């Protein structure tokens, strides 16, 4: 009988998250390769070669959520990282420096010993992809340079014109082929095309069940508490090419469907308004943001951020164009108009009354178009929006009082709109 038999989705999530890190530690211990990867970089190639994967953004988010970010930020600060650099990256560079010191001296630095960070090994190679930002190019350049290890780059050019043009897909597919060649050299053996096919199929099954979960927020009242997407995201990021993600997401989607049938809703009858969350969660204050909204009867039923991992593609397309398109159409890698359309689609499907924009001190790409996006959408669907200041891992930027005031204002506007329609 398998260890996971009878586990609820929540237990599966914790189990597989831990297991993914354990896999990497085991691989390292066996002298096998470990790769650090950007969160929306294609894992299919490395996984097909049996390389264990670690996702620094998820790792940093975990450190942030466990209130351990400041220590790592301080290490990065001492190395010369300006507070203006994305805090995911700074936390990771701090962590990497600690691991590097431990590897060189054989002694774990104090901050590392005391850190609530999940224990992950140093990488032997990194893979990065700029489909969510160019910061990931700079950050991974640094990891590769500081550790003197290979860096695989999948460059997905900013799609200033949509739909994604054929020549962009061609360029990305060429990079996929190049990544394969790089991996053959790094691993010292030919690429495993058969396993690659299996991994692509696996990835599609994981994505399918991920989308099943997200689609549950279409129901009103919603059986899905949207904040759960933030929690389950760890696996769509880190394990989408393994069955870990599929098993967990299927279990969760099944649970949600049963709840729906049984009339069990996320807010147990207290759902008054429905909001969209634009941007990354504020990990160190996740609880506060959730409770603040819940206290006002506002449920989150849509966010484009977790939806970025809707990486559906044709796994049988040997040109890899379909896969290339999936990895480049990420909404923040496209023009404003498309971005607004994506967000509007999410608002429609989630029957959403208003939107909250996270003005993220770390993330220029997910902040500098907020005003234009908010206004463009408001002009089209008339839904109100508010913005608050935060940061996904540096706990110092977020002010609970400001957040509360802003969402309060949003809730008032949404309730007024709903009342006006009812009259």
């Amino acid at each position: 009988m398998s260890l996971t038999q009878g586990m609820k989705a929540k237990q599966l999530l914790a189990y597989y998250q831990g297991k993914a890190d354990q896999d990497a530690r085991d691989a390292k211990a066996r002298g096998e390769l470990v790769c650090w990867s950007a969160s929306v970089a294609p894992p299919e190639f490395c996984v097909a070669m049996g390389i264990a994967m670690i996702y620094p953004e998820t790792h940093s988010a975990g450190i942030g959520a466990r209130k351990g970010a400041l220590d790592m930020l301080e290490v990065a600060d001492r190395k010369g990282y300006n507070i203006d650099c994305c805090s995911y990256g700074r936390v990771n560079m701090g962590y990497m420096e600690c691991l590097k010191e431990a590897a060189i001296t054989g002694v774990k630095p104090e901050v590392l010993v005391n850190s609530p960070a999940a224990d992950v090994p140093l990488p032997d190679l990194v893979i990065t992809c700029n489909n969510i930002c160019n910061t990931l190019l700079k950050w991974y350049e640094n990891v590769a340079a500081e550790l003197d290890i290979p860096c695989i780059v999948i460059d997905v050019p900013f799609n200033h014109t949509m739909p994604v043009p054929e020549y962009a897909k061609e360029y990305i597919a060429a990079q996929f082929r190049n990544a394969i060649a790089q991996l053959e050299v790094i691993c010292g053996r030919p690429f495993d095309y058969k396993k690659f096919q299996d991994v692509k199929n696996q990835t599609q099954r994981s994505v399918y069940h991920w989308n099943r979960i997200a689609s549950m927020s279409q129901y009103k009242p919603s059986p899905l508490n949207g904040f759960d997407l933030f929690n389950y995201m760890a696996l769509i990021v880190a394990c989408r090419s393994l069955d870990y993600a599929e098993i967990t997401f299927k279990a969760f989607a099944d649970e949600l469907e049963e709840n729906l049938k049984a009339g069990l809703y996320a807010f147990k009858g207290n759902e008054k308004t429905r909001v969209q969350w634009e941007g990354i969660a504020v990990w160190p204050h996740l609880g506060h943001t959730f409770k603040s909204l819940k206290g006002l009867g506002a449920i989150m039923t849509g966010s484009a951020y977790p939806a970025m991992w809707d990486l559906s593609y044709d796994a049988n397309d040997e040109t890899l164009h379909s896969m290339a398109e999936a990895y480049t159409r990420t909404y923040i890698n496209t023009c404003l108009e498309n971005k607004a359309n994506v967000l509007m689609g999410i608002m429609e499907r989630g029957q959403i009354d208003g939107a909250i924009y996270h003005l993220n001190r770390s993330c220029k790409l997910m902040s500098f178009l907020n005003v234009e996006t908010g206004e463009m959408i408001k002009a089209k669907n008339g839904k109100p929006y508010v913005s608050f200041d935060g940061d996904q891992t540096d706990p110092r930027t977020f002010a609970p009082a400001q957040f509360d005031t802003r969402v309060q204002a949003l809730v008032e506007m949404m309730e007024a709109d709903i009342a006006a329609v009812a009259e």
Partner: protein
Amino acid sequence: MSRVEAILTQLKDVAANPAKALADYKAETGKGAVGIMPVYAPEEMIHATGFLPMGIWGAQGKTISQARTYLPPFACSIMQQVMELQCEGAYDELSAVLFSVPCDTLKCLSQKWKGTSPVIVFTHPQNRGLEAANQFLVTEYELVKAQLEKYLGVKITNVALENSIAVYNENRVAMREFVEVAAEYPQVIDAVSRHAVFKSRQFMLKEKHTELVKELIAEVKAMPVEPWDGKKVVVTGIMLEPNELLDIFNEFKIAIVADDLAQESRQIRVDVLDSEEGPLYRLAKVWQQMYGCSLATDTKKGRGKMLINKTIQTGADAIIVAMMKFCDPEEWDYPVMFREFEEKGIKNLTIEVDQEVSSFEQIKTRLQSFVEMM
């Protein structure tokens, strides 16, 4: 006034007054100008249309007010200024604006132009070693070309393009020589003049600029080389402005013997090579050959080593990092460079470039104590 002074005064005037440069150009040719957002663009294509390519690098000391609505305070200093100027309509004279998107800030900015000029956006590929990247960029350039032709109502012929490439290559060669001459004659070409020679090239036709620079070089080289009793530095960053800041360099006798500024030497680092290939392909290749820039992905991080080599080659006493406020690509390069400088025992100092400030007392104090320490 000596001929050297006369040329420098002329170039300083152009650098200080782009609006006049444009008005003069219009009066003279009947054609307008196309704006070029930082950092890199196939400017030769614009030149080939007969329109004046003009760099857009912000302004100094403008208080940010209207731009606040559209940009949070943590957007880089130069783009705050550019946004403010957009809101004021300062760029509305331009017949088009060419926009590359090599950083997250520019990706966003490319989607929110507040002026009236049409905006042409293109993306530089970042996996630059691959031939597929060249092909991608050629297609982007074809689209840029088609849009330029549409907005300007001019056909860009291969003959015109080849001519423009030759004009630009000649200018780059002349500018690289100028950098060496300026290093040899800091008494004649001080920091303010050196910058003006670079800056003016953004607001005038390159053939005219080349002519003046060549003459300047000849005049300067005819003078005897004097020993320099001040310090020598290599500067790196996006840009080093305004003149008040450069005046401090002059005051403390800090000669800039080489630069790696995006606004200056990075623009002239790589020529368009001769080959059997067509002009667009060769223009695309320039990006592949670019190096030592925070915006051109380099998994080997060669910039620090490049700067160290420059410092040794030029006999400079130190490297000054001119850090554009809130410019994350540059901020990400810094820790690796800094470690490399320290490991090699190369003195270095970081100063912040903030286009909104108008007081430089703090930088002055820091530069002064740095010079004393050297």
